[in-house]
């Protein structure tokens, strides 16, 4: 079987937020980019919000992520934020907003202020930027809430949510189930199914009618994050106008409609700019000395070899599949087999209780880099053209810091800038910022 060889300026490996942002940053600078990944990326499992830095090490909520970030960078020089710096975060957020608004999907909030959003359990989560469709949910506003769910939708329980939230907030929280014939004929509704229903104005009309009859004096109305997949602004505006009240979405169990909207917006934007996206194949990279020379993609029926001036490695950590953990304690970076920093003994990966406050040691493992995010090889010398971004980086715990999207964006940006610097073509014609 003949090998096919393709060349481009940069190959981004991984389709999570870090990889998508890196590909966008490169495409914006005129680079020929391929985005190649084994799977669909982590966005389908997330809240769809942009966490920047939400909690300190004691678990206390942080009010101002930007100033907390400076303290974090000063105190923890190995944290990915310390490598990327505030500037990369700010630039990446601007690009993120540009990509989202190109799909008419807008985010509310600023980097200097966190918000406190209700969860589907009726707890709260600290985040920073939220889709407009969630903004009215901030529990610091004292407007009474009505939480609406759908009886046949198994991933959202308004009474349980409301009962928990009532303990935490000073305003009243009512709950309401809707029995909608359009949903009841179906057995196992996923959030995606309900979201598609909300793209239909007739369905929304039915929801509006029933909610209006049961408002309980609410000042705002919360729904699971299923208010439309393709035209969420239209859906939210319609509901808000007809109910005469602010409407907000609450993220719930995966698949995450809000995360998928972000994913779709990125893909649309990238494809419009000629970025080649290939998802679903095993990828093996080859390194020679201090450079990566090619990757081999195990696509259907044949292997395709790609070479590039630079490679952005954004394959995720042990959760995302970028790092595989073996029973003998081996931690393997799955594309280039780069050294992974972390305990080489599986009994040291987890300690204490599950879901506890302390980060688990396994959450902190990753591929070590220098300050330019260049991966460090076996002898701790940099692999010049492999730039690491997102959860593949060590020394951070998105779940406990509430920093997942911010780190992905900032390091995706920083890695992309490193790749731009490495690209002979881009440098010679002087494209770029």
């Amino acid at each position, binding site marked *: 079987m003949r090998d096919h060889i393709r060349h481009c300026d940069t190959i981004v490996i991984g389709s999570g937020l870090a990889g998508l942002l890196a590909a966008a940053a490169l495409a914006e600078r005129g680079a020929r980019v391929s985005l190649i990944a084994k799977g669909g990326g982590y966005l389908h*499992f*997330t809240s769809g919000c942009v966490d920047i830095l939400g909690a300190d090490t004691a*678990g*206390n*909520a*942080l*009010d101002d992520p930007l100033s907390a970030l400076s303290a974090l960078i000063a105190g923890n020089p190995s944290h990915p934020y310390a490598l990327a710096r505030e500037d990369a975060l700010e630039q990446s957020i601007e690009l993120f907003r540009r990509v989202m608004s190109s799909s008419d999907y807008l985010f509310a909030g600023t980097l200097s202020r*966190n*918000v*406190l959003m209700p*969860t*589907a*359990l*009726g*707890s*709260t*989560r*600290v985040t920073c930027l939220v889709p407009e469709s969630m903004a009215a949910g901030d529990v*610091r506003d004292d407007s009474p809430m009505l939480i609406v769910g759908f*009886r*046949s939708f*198994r*991933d959202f*329980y308004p*009474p*349980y949510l409301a*009962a*928990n939230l*009532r*303990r*935490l*907030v*000073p305003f009243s929280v009512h709950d309401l189930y809707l*029995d909608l014939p359009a949903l*009841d*004929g*179906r*057995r*196992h509704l996923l959030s995606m199914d309900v979201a598609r229903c909300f793209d239909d104005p007739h369905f929304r009309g039915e929801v509006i009618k029933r909610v209006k009859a049961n408002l309980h004096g609410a000042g705002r109305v919360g729904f699971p994050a299923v208010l439309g997949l393709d035209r969420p602004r239209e859906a939210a505006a319609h509901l808000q106008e007809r109910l005469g009240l602010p409407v907000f979405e609450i993220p719930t*169990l*995966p698949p*995450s409609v809000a995360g998928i909207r972000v994913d779709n917006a990125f893909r649309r934007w990238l494809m419009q700019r000629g970025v080649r996206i290939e998802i679903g194949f095993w990828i093996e990279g080859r390194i020679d000395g201090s450079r990566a020379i090619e990757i081999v993609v195990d696509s259907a029926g044949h292997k395709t070899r790609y070479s590039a001036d630079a490679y952005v490695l954004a394959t995720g950590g*042990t*959760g*995302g*599949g970028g790092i*595989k*953990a*073996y*029973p003998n304690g081996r931690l393997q970076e799955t594309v280039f087999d780069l050294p992974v920093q972390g305990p080489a003994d*599986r009994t040291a*990966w987890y300690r204490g*209780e*599950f*879901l506890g406050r302390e980060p688990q040691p*396994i*959450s902190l493992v990753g591929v070590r880099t220098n300050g330019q995010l260049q991966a460090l090889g076996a002898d701790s010398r940099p692999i010049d053209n492999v730039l690491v971004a997102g959860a593949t980086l060590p020394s951070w715990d998105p*779940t*406990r810091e*509430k920093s997942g999207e911010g780190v992905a964006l900032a390091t995706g940006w920083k890695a992309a800038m490193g790749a731009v610097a490495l690209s002979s073509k881009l440098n010679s014609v002087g494209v770029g910022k």
Partner: protein
Amino acid sequence: MYQTEVVVIGGGATGAGVLRDAAMRGFKTLLVERGDFGTGTSGRYHGLLHSGARYAVRDPVSARECIDENRILRRIASAAIEDTGGLFVTTPDDDPSYADKFVVACRQAGIPVEEISVAEALRREPLLNPAIMRVFVVPDGSCEPWALIDANVRSAREFGGEAWNYHRVHGFERSNGRLDAVHVLDTRTGEEKTISCDFVINAAGAWAGQIAAMAGPPVHMTAGKGSMIVMNHRLVNTVLNRCHMPSDGDILVPVGTVCIIGTTSINVPDPDDYEIEPAEIDGMLAEGEKLIPGFSRTRSLRAYAGVRPLYSEHDVSSSQGREVTRAYAVLQHSSRDGVENFVSVVGGKLTTYRLMAQAGVDAMCDDLGVTRPCRTADEPLPGSENGRYDSIQRRLATIETRGGAENALVCECEFVQRTQVEHVALEKNTHDLNDIRRELRLGMGPCQGGFCTYRVGGILHELRHLSPEVTNEALLRFLNERWKGIKPVLWGDDLRQVQLDEEIYVNLLGVDRLERVRTRAQEPV
């Protein structure tokens, strides 16, 4: 003060069997169990319905008991038993001379055994090691312990028997060589109860020594820890055994959607305090490779351990567990210790639970001087009247024919529907997700509760009008119980799953902030 004729202590298979047997013989009988039914050794075994072949060479008494009971259980408990059949295979790592001794011993014990060609074995089980040399077919099976125990309890209730779970025995009232009453604590309400009775049957398994000590007579039990690993796939459809002297990691049992490799054998001082050692896991995975090449690289789901109730008249704690007989013993404390209305049923194994129960109740009849014949081998258990196995395929068929919100799948891994959860929660009067799990296998599949826990929390909160605090506690308790079993096998895809579960519960649902009551002055966000 409660009043009954017979108190049975222990709600495992043996205790439930004793309850049913005594109730069927017309005794007013009450069973007390400190946890939920089947939470001791019975619910923590590999699920193998023995043909007896495993014990044929070393322990022929046990082997004969097993084959007799195997035949009876297929008849009376079909809903809980899948007729997988069993294979004994001689791998290149096994002493080839064992096979001939094995066949002779099986025949002597009355166990049907038939040699088949390696090619035929590979046709039946394609993942089997092709380097095996000999293969024997025996009538092993796969047994769902909770379904079996539940059916015994339900049957007993039809005959007037009663069973209290979450009631812990903490003492006896004694006079003149008799036990007059049993003191129990309702662990869910904190209520103390005294049950006056004519007779006590101790079926507390590995805990039988502790119970007997409270009653007076010394019964020396040894807790023999056995660990098992649940594999994510049903790699085999037949029970696989190595054809050699019983050892570690040499049984692989298909159970529902998964399969289970077992076991290890390490005596532990306390049946309530033991851990699974990493070396046990590594050892079983390595042994699994000999049966199924590539075994250690397939996904494991969780590990668990149970304690065998090993009994010997002499202290055996210093010997290796596998050398102690797996035959059972009935201790008639009237003649043995001068306590005239007390019997302990000890040792044995799940496959022989019915026989042990029969012998225990026979001993009681003997002490009481009455003759009432045992009928447990003749009448099928509830749910098994039609002789069919209650398979997951039947669950799927039900789901396919029932629509509507109330039939939505709550647990996709094990096909559990909302109505089933509601039914069990009401019938068992519980909001404990583990109680529901044992009945429905909820949360026992690949995601280990990642998705269904939140859903069941929402459902139970509504159904049982629980406070949010109680619901949250039940939810977190279940996740942590699942976590205990996952922890020993955390690598590869299991590790990825756990990270997803963390993402869902901490990041998406905010369990870390559930107790952060907001007061504007204290915390701005």
